[in-house]
């Protein structure tokens, strides 16, 4: 926006940008205003693959852009279409933008279906390195908000999910609701605030470029303006999980490696057993999908940072630097929960986090973790850091997370953390070209 001088005036004013108006396009203010429905449809119908001049090179992966990426892989794209949605088994990107949205009052089933169609198109475009639409009209607000122009796509994935509330009476979806999709029961060590709880829909955008991830959520929310509104949003600035054997294990804000024992995408049988929804669901449309559990976990980092090293390690059950379990070995050595330390006590203490969270301790239960570190700034009351782990995990049934979290009631780490937000979503399976989320859900 260039200020008042650049604001489109009444018909006949000079084009502030000095560009010719495209023929055949209505001038703003001419004729009846487009309905929200038409806007949505229009967004969905935006010229595929045609880059407007101003946004040329938005994604270098599409070739010939101003932001030609070097050989660092930042121009890499992740296919949008496939058996499963991208952003689950995809090697965890470095950055996250996560938004939940609620339908506004008056939204109809048709509005929701059209929105999901429009989102499909926009998500396919953005993850392929295209803006959400071309901008050729000087008197129209730019279709794409533009902040990611010139940024390499950086493995952007966009994953959507449906919250339990989406299946209430409003959209005629009650008989499409998976029986396993329900708000989580009260769980230990949580004090959930409404500011970070629930949502009709969620958008998980991951990229190695924070601006690209943010841009994706912002533009989908914008497309939904009038149909949905923001519920809450979180940005993740560093991945805390490894989802593929080729990735280095990252560290969370505790300073410990996180995700060493996570399910890896290469472990196909584990993915099928614990992550992808299969024939067990009562809703065939969800097969090939997954449940997403999001938990906002505040870490009282000041308190943690004061704990002496050995106690930190006993709290987690691993050595801080190497990541090796306290029962010995190296990072990827299997923890020996029966091993005794020099004092005759268990080498991995009884309340160590990795013991209580382990599948050995939970009748084999596993989940695919895909969380990020976050900060919301400073606690206005205490002046301490508001930050921690934005936990995201995928699983074939939310009951997996419930079991694990209940096991963590005795976790020694609870002294330093607190769950402040929570949501669960059913993420539909992947799409084939020509399919869209709206038609699939409202079939």
């Amino acid at each position, binding site marked *: 926006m260039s200020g008042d001088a650049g604001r489109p005036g009444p018909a006949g004013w000079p084009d502030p940008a000095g560009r010719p108006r495209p023929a055949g396009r209505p001038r703003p203010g001419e004729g009846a205003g487009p309905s929200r429905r038409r806007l949505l449809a229009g967004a969905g119908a935006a010229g595929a693959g045609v880059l407007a001049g101003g946004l040329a090179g938005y994604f270098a992966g599409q070739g010939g852009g101003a932001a030609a990426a070097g050989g660092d892989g930042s121009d890499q794209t992740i296919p949008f279409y496939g058996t499963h949605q991208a952003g689950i088994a995809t090697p965890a990107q470095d950055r996250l933008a996560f938004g939940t949205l609620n339908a506004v009052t008056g939204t109809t089933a048709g509005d929701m279906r059209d929105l999901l169609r429009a989102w499909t198109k926009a998500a396919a475009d953005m993850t392929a390195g295209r803006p959400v639409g071309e901008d050729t009209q000087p008197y129209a607000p730019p279709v794409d908000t533009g902040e990611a122009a010139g940024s390499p796509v950086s493995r952007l994935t966009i994953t959507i999910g449906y919250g339990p509330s989406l299946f209430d009476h409003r959209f005629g979806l009650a008989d499409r609701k998976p029986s396993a999709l329900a708000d989580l029961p009260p769980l230990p060590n949580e004090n959930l605030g409404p500011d970070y709880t629930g949502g009709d829909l969620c958008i998980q955008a991951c990229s190695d470029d924070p601006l690209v991830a943010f841009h994706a959520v912002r533009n989908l929310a914008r497309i939904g303006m009038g149909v949905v509104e923001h519920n809450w949003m979180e940005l993740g600035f560093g991945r805390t999980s490894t989802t593929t054997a080729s990735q280095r294990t990252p560290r969370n804000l505790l300073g410990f490696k996180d995700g060493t024992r996570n399910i890896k995408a290469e472990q196909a049988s584990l993915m099928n057993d614990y992550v992808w929804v299969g024939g067990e669901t009562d809703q065939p449309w969800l097969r090939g999908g997954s449940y997403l559990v999001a938990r906002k976990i505040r870490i009282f980092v000041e308190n943690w940072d004061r704990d002496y090293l050995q*106690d930190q390690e006993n709290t987690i059950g691993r050595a801080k630097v190497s990541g090796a379990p306290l029962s010995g070995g190296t990072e990827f050595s299997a923890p020996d929960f029966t091993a005794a*330390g020099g004092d005759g006590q268990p080498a991995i203490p009884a309340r160590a986090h990795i013991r209580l969270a382990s599948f050995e301790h939970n009748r084999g239960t596993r989940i695919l973790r895909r969380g990020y570190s976050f900060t919301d700034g400073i606690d206005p009351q*205490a002046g301490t850091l508001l930050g921690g782990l934005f936990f995201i995990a995928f699983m074939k049934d939310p009951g997996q997370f419930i079991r694990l979290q209940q096991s963590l009631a*005795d976790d020694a780490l609870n002294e330093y953390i607190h769950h402040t937000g929570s949501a669960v979503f059913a993420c539909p399976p992947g799409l084939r070209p020509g399919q869209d989320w709206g038609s699939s859900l409202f079939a």
Partner: protein
Amino acid sequence: MHTDGNEKGRRARWLPASTGVAAVAGLALLASACSSSHGSSGSAAATARTTTVTIDLTPHGCAPKPAKIPAGPVQFNVSNADADAVSEAELRTSDLARILGEQENLTPGLSGEFSLNLQPGTYKINCPGAAQQHWDFTVTGKAAGPSWQSSPQLAAAVRSYAGYIDQNTAGLVAHTQAFCRAIDARNMAQAEVLYPQARVYYERIEPVAEVWGSLDTEIDGRWENPVTVASQFIGFHKIEQLIWADNTLAGAPKLCTGLVGHEQQLLTLVRSVQYNPLEMTSGATDLINEAATSKISGEEERYSNTDLPVFQANVDGAMEVVGLLQPYLQDKDPALLSQIRQRDAAVAALLAKYKASPGYDDTGYVEYSTVLDPQRRQLSAAVNALAESLSKLPVQVSG
């Protein structure tokens, strides 16, 4: 935030006194053994070298080789080459009254061993059936044990700390009983005054109480934490909720009786453990962490708004540790001690602003809800600074 009901101590770090003896295979009692500190303490006695003593069972006897060793861990290797009439070796007190360790059923061709941690003194090796049954065995040197035990200042601090814990736990029981009497008498106003008076005893010693996680939950759990076990929201804060939020005493007498019962269990347990300087000092930091989180936020006493006296209690419990260690710290790190004193004074000066007489519910302080966010931030900054200094104590006492 360890008042959260499910949040228990990270591991049971205070050793029950009965397990304070050295680990000995097949040996139930070792009267003269030292206390060993817990493995998580970083100052375990396991650093001492193990001495090996060889005992050959012969028809003649069971002479230990060597017959004189330094105090500390010792392993006895016992073997029987061809002594048909002798099949065991025992380590006994010098008066032969008690067996401290033994290896038996060693028929010819067999060997075995036993290990223990020996304090200085004279002992006897005993081998029934031999021509000479009793053999002298001597342990020399200083008592082996956690290094802090050789520091009179640290040992005295630990003894005094045990007394402090004992007194406060006993005070907790007594003051909770008074609180319960007011509840039984349906005297709401009196109960409101007596509640914070009992609370402070717990808040001075909480890191110790936390070791017994379920007791901590039963005494001090807050509603958000034991929700998966609803029946565990039965302690102080449940009664607090009844009084201040629900304005009723219905059900409170029974809860209060249960609360006292759990506190009495705690009293028995705190008298059974061996304390050590490492956990004393890290517990001091934990107490201030506690003040910095759940008290600053007001979550701890969310119904009664009596957070200030328990905030004070957290600080008192932590500074008690500092006071007990003062003679040691004056030599070891006077600059740190001075910094802690300064920061404690800064906290005290800020707290003094909220003192009142008789104060809200006779607590000596104003109601916490009247302390506004900018003021809470001042308090938070001061206690965080204090906690940061306190966190430097464990390494000072764990050498």
